[in-house]
């Protein structure tokens, strides 16, 4: 069963095998990059004779930004705060944010997973990483991987709720983009 609510793929011509395989390929790549849970609906249109490849997707929004309290336990100590890191993946981002906010002289790291801040201001709410921006970067990477490789002329329109990706061998003329968007709209309404 697909983890997405809707996953439609349409390929022109007698390309039943290609359609089936492309479906598997898209699932494999999205799963590899850990993106599949964040996409709600996906429409893929491929015209081999043109040739043009397009993907339109609706995102499951609402990935909150990562704050200091998400990556570690914040404790009030004498003369400041101590952060005990649980998630080392974002360590460098955390230090960068703390240095920027408090200044290097007030941030000390006596052990690998402990950061001491000499300030009365609580760091819990500071934003360490914008996960949504990271997700959109990964999504773009995934779409480039999914598109057939010879389709080097690409255009990617992304918003917080949806994305539209189109790739072709020839120059992307506005008429071609409009025509492809129309095709995807037809798929949505079908």
């Amino acid at each position, binding site marked *: 069963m697909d983890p997405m609510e809707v996953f439609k793929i349409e*390929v022109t*011509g*007698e*390309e*039943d*095998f*290609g359609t089936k*395989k*492309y479906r*598997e*390929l898209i699932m*494999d*790549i999205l799963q*590899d990059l850990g993106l599949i849970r964040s996409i709600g609906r996906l429409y893929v249109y491929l015209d*081999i*004779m043109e*040739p043009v490849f397009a993907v339109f997707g609706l995102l499951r929004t609402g990935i909150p930004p990562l704050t200091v309290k998400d990556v570690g336990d914040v404790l009030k100590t004498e003369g400041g705060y101590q952060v005990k890191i649980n998630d080392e993946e974002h360590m460098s981002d955390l230090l960068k944010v703390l240095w920027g906010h408090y200044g290097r002289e007030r941030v000390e790291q006596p052990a690998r997973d402990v950061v001491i801040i000499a300030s009365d201001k609580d760091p819990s709410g500071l934003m360490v990483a914008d996960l949504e921006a990271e997700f959109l970067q990964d999504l773009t990477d995934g779409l480039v*991987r999914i598109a*057939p*490789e*010879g*389709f*080097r002329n690409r255009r990617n329109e992304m918003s917080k709720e949806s994305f539209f990706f189109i790739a072709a*061998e*020839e120059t992307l003329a506005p008429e071609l983009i409009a025509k492809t968007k129309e095709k995807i709209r037809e798929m949505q309404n079908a």
Partner: protein
Amino acid sequence: MLEPVMFTGGLYKHDLVVELVEDLGGYVLQKNVTQSEVILLILVPSEDKPVLEALIKELRGELVRAPLAGTEVAVVTPTLAIHHLPHTACDIAEYLRRHGSKTNMMGLARGVGREIAQINEYETALINEHDAAVFIFGNFRECIRRKESLYRNITVPVVVTGGPEIDKCELPYAFEYVPSIGRVAHRARKATEIGTLDSIIESVGRALDKTRTDITKDPLTTSPPRVMDAVREQVPEVEYSYSPLPIALNLTGVRVKLPYDGYKDAVSAVTFDEGVKLGEIATIKPSRMKDYILVRILPASETGYVF
């Protein structure tokens, strides 16, 4: 007739196998040592194979037929980007290696796309130095049909692989077409996928057999393994080459992995027991692969004798 086989066993006492093969008049084509294991690719006279089997049984080793041993196969993908590698291309290359072939993976510079795919003269010449080529294409029928221009000028047999079922007569320039292995984003692990790899091996085997049959119509002056042995003996510098296989065998000659300018005369002067020099019975030219030496043995129709 020499039979290609592969020995897998312990490093301990494997010298006995090498010695026996040499005594029987066979050739050790390649030796790979991996920690305490050794893999030998061997050509052994078929009538003496039971003697070798008996020794290998005693050593608790394994002897299997390696139908592709002594051949070089090019695995060609439209590019070396993530779209084509690693899964399909590496699976096919590895599977060919397991059956004894020397496999080279090649990515074309501009092989992508349906309309824009192209191959240049250098790439064509490099593929032509091999005994057979496997072209790996994708999932769409129309693209596979259009990409015929990539292998139209290749003189060695080309096995084309792709996803959909396509009738062979639609691809007149391909030797054979193997379906159900288009672009995938995972390693071959299901029984059907492994089965497809087997059919590629069978197809490559048939392509090589065709070349072998063509050669028997006008036999080579001497056999490539004999040239390999003579070069190894008389040009000792080849053992210091950093390549894992310093002399690569083809069906019609060998590739000596030494710089062409420095060693072409030494290779040309290699003399056989019959008093014939290699330069007299073979063309020695620069290979398209790095600056190696390509030796192509002339057929009997040109030299007038076979030994």
